[in-house]
């Protein structure tokens, strides 16, 4: 045991291994943070959520820190709700029997250099028979007033300003999210307009025709950047998947590596100890397994049966038990088998299983450690590969699934690099972290490599 610890201490002599150890430590901390900050059920619920959860998030926008590269103060999302109070005022006045005005004024400060990505106005009303009538205005800092529309509304209504054709025409052909914020002095043929900073106001003049009838509004000015990781095509915050990808990747990689290494290690020990047909069978199965196309079989299973990550994990372990490493371990066990201490143990009457598990295996166990560490990233990438092929777990948010979403939505063609780079960098760092430690361990536990 003490030599084992000494060996581990030796790891710190390798600079790359120190980097790797830090990466692994960082990943573990990250994974623990993810599990604590966003519990499992909540993460799944968020990731599978639709409009009701992600409605106020911008679509396909890069993370906030990417604004550094553009050198501009890019807009973040602004949400104004008539229920939230504060500067937002809602006033009501009796006009006639059962008829009231409901005026909502939503002032806000716009300090950004660029225009919002999209503008939506969500309207809600309470009424029995007669629908409330609305007249909506937009007031700019320089005192202009732009009519946005006049109409009756149902119980819930979504007024997508950005795709309103009449509004576009009224704004002289400019897209509403640009036209409403553009400085009129900069609106010229062929030039990109500049945003006008200052205090804007959205005014809703409503008229309700029943007692107890009411109107509420929510204005969402979607930003051009969002959070630490940006958002995807379904407006989801990619951060959720980046966070949860770590514990899933680590769990998958670790369990697959432990499962497959320990099982093939035990099989090699049993085979070399008993010899004869047991050994022969294990050897032949290993040869069959080399020819089995593992990835296509996983694809078959993913397509026909289950895409659950745990089923895939089980199959991965099953398929890698009879891997080529059995032959490596076997040749080591064959040497150990002839050592005097085994002879001694046999002389005092230890039975076969005791000899295999208590005497043979512990002797060769240290050799497992480097290959075990180098195996982890290969399984992490296997999971990502399956996800990229569209066979990822349907429920869990993983790095591979973010890559898959990015790929199927043409992120590289459309220049949404953050979407590809974020999960790819995390995978890369994970892979390199484990690989560097594995390489250093290989040199430590393999004395023949140490000299060269």
């Amino acid at each position, binding site marked *: 045991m003490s030599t084992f610890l000494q060996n581990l201490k030796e790891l710190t002599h390798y600079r790359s291994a120190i980097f790797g150890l830090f990466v692994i430590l960082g990943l573990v901390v990250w994974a623990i943070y993810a599990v604590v900050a966003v519990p499992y059920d909540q993460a799944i619920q968020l990731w599978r959520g639709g409009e009701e959860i992600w409605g106020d998030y911008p679509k396909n926008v890069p993370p906030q820190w990417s604004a550094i590269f553009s050198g501009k103060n890019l807009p973040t999302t602004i949400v104004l709700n008539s229920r939230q109070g504060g500067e937002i005022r809602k006033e009501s006045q009796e006009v006639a029997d059962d008829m009231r005005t409901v005026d909502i004024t939503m002032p806000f400060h716009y300090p950004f250099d660029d225009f919002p990505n999209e503008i939506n106005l969500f309207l809600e009303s309470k009424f029995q028979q007669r629908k409330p009538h609305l007249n909506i205005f937009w007031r700019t800092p320089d005192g202009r007033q732009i009519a946005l529309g006049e109409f009756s509304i149902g119980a819930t209504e979504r007024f997508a300003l950005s795709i309103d054709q009449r509004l576009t025409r009224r704004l002289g052909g400019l897209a509403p999210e640009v036209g409403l914020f553009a400085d009129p002095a900069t609106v010229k043929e062929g030039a990109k307009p500049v945003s006008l900073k200052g205090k804007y106001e959205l005014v809703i003049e409503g008229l309700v025709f029943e007692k107890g009838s009411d109107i509420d509004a929510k204005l969402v000015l979607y930003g051009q950047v969002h959070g630490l990781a940006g958002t995807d095509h379904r407006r989801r915050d990619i951060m959720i998947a980046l966070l949860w990808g770590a514990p899933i990747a680590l769990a998958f990689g670790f369990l697959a590596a432990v499962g497959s290494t320990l099982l093939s290690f035990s099989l090699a020990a049993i085979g070399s100890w008993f010899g004869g047909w047991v050994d022969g069978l294990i050897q032949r199965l290993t040869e069959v397994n*080399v020819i089995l196309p593992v990835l*296509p079989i996983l694809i078959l299973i993913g397509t026909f049966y289950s895409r659950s990550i745990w089923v895939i994990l089980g199959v991965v372990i099953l398929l890698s038990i009879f891997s080529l*490493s059995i032959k*490596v371990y076997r040749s080591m066990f064959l040497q150990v088998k002839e050592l005097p201490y085994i002879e001694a143990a046999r002389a005092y009457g230890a039975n076969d299983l005791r000899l295999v598990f208590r005497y043979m295996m512990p002797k060769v166990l240290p050799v497992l450690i480097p290959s075990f560490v180098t195996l982890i990233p290969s399984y992490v*990438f296997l999971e990502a590969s399956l996800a990229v092929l*569209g066979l990822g777990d349907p429920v869990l948010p993983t790095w591979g699934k973010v890559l898959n979403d990015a790929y199927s939505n043409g992120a590289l063609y459309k220049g949404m690099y953050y979407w590809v780079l974020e999960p790819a960098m995390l995978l890369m760092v994970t892979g390199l972290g484990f*690989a560097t430690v594995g390489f250093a361990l290989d040199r430590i536990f393999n004395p023949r490599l140490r000299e060269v």
Partner: protein
Amino acid sequence: MTTEVLTQQAAPRSRVGIRLPDTLTRILRYTLYRGVALFITVVVGVYLTVLIANMGGYLDTIRMAQIREAAGMIVLTDPQLQALPPSELRQRIDEIAAIEIQRLRLDQPFFIRSLDYLTDALTLTLGRAEHLSSDSGSRQVRLIIFERLPATILLFATGNLTLFFTSVFVALYLSRRYGSLLDKMVIALAPTSAPPGWFYGIFLILIFASLLRLLPFGGMVDAPPPETVPEYVLSLIRHMILPVTAIIINAIFNSIYNWRTFFLIYSSEDYVELAKAKGLSSRAIERRYILRPTLPPIVTSFAFTLIFLWQGAIILETVFTWPGLGRLLYQAVSIFDVPVIVGSVVLIAYLLAITVFLLDIVYAILDPRVKVGGERRV
């Protein structure tokens, strides 16, 4: 893998005149033995694949549906039967289908049926694809698959051969300059082989296609394909640069590192020291005393690289939209074309077996100790 090959100590033997007939019979016997053994393993592998694909009853449903469709065609296009009422027509269809099902032994127990499927899969008699079709318009699974094979072979042969020869020669060079800056760099870069090839593919596409717009995003030739041969070849090469680079970047540092470690270990053997003491040129030492005994493990290791790459092909081709076997499998998976999925898996199993087989023969030629069936066993 390093440890595995290290355990196979191969000492060079002085060649006291080659007796060709002996060598030839040795290799022939060995080839036969390995061929039979590998064929059995392929059969076992394909049988497992068939079992997996059939557990959900997919193959059965496809075949039943095909039979019913064929029976329907026979009855409905028969002018003599057109006067019959629909219920009777349906009965006729059922009768014909039942006879056909009996003929094809679909009413047999699963074990017997699974053996039938096994022979079909092994001969790639997989009938018609459900959705996909070949470029020539055929629906035959076999044609669809074989049409894609050359693309895969072209890409992976180019990538792997380049990779193999570059890494072996760079490794030889480095083993002479052990401890130099270049050597240290290669050791430091060896862990970059942890991510798979497609992963580097994404970065390459991002840089060279997306940002710099120098090379195409994917595909095999421009659309529409160039008409003259030189233009076609040029376009093909342009499309091959990125995927081949991805294959090479992915594995090169690790394989250089592995070879170099080998060469260093073998160059500290006593017989190398002796050769040095005899005053042989370093080139001769390299060729006869280092490269020759290390060739068998190198070849084994190359075989494993190939095996992993055949499987990596599926994603690499998908990422680069390369019209090969891997992409076909991906397309078949995404539209649930079961005959094509089973066919591709079987063909990939065959390719793996052929790879192993070819390398076994090469191994037998290279390693004089392999004497299966020979009189003098070592």
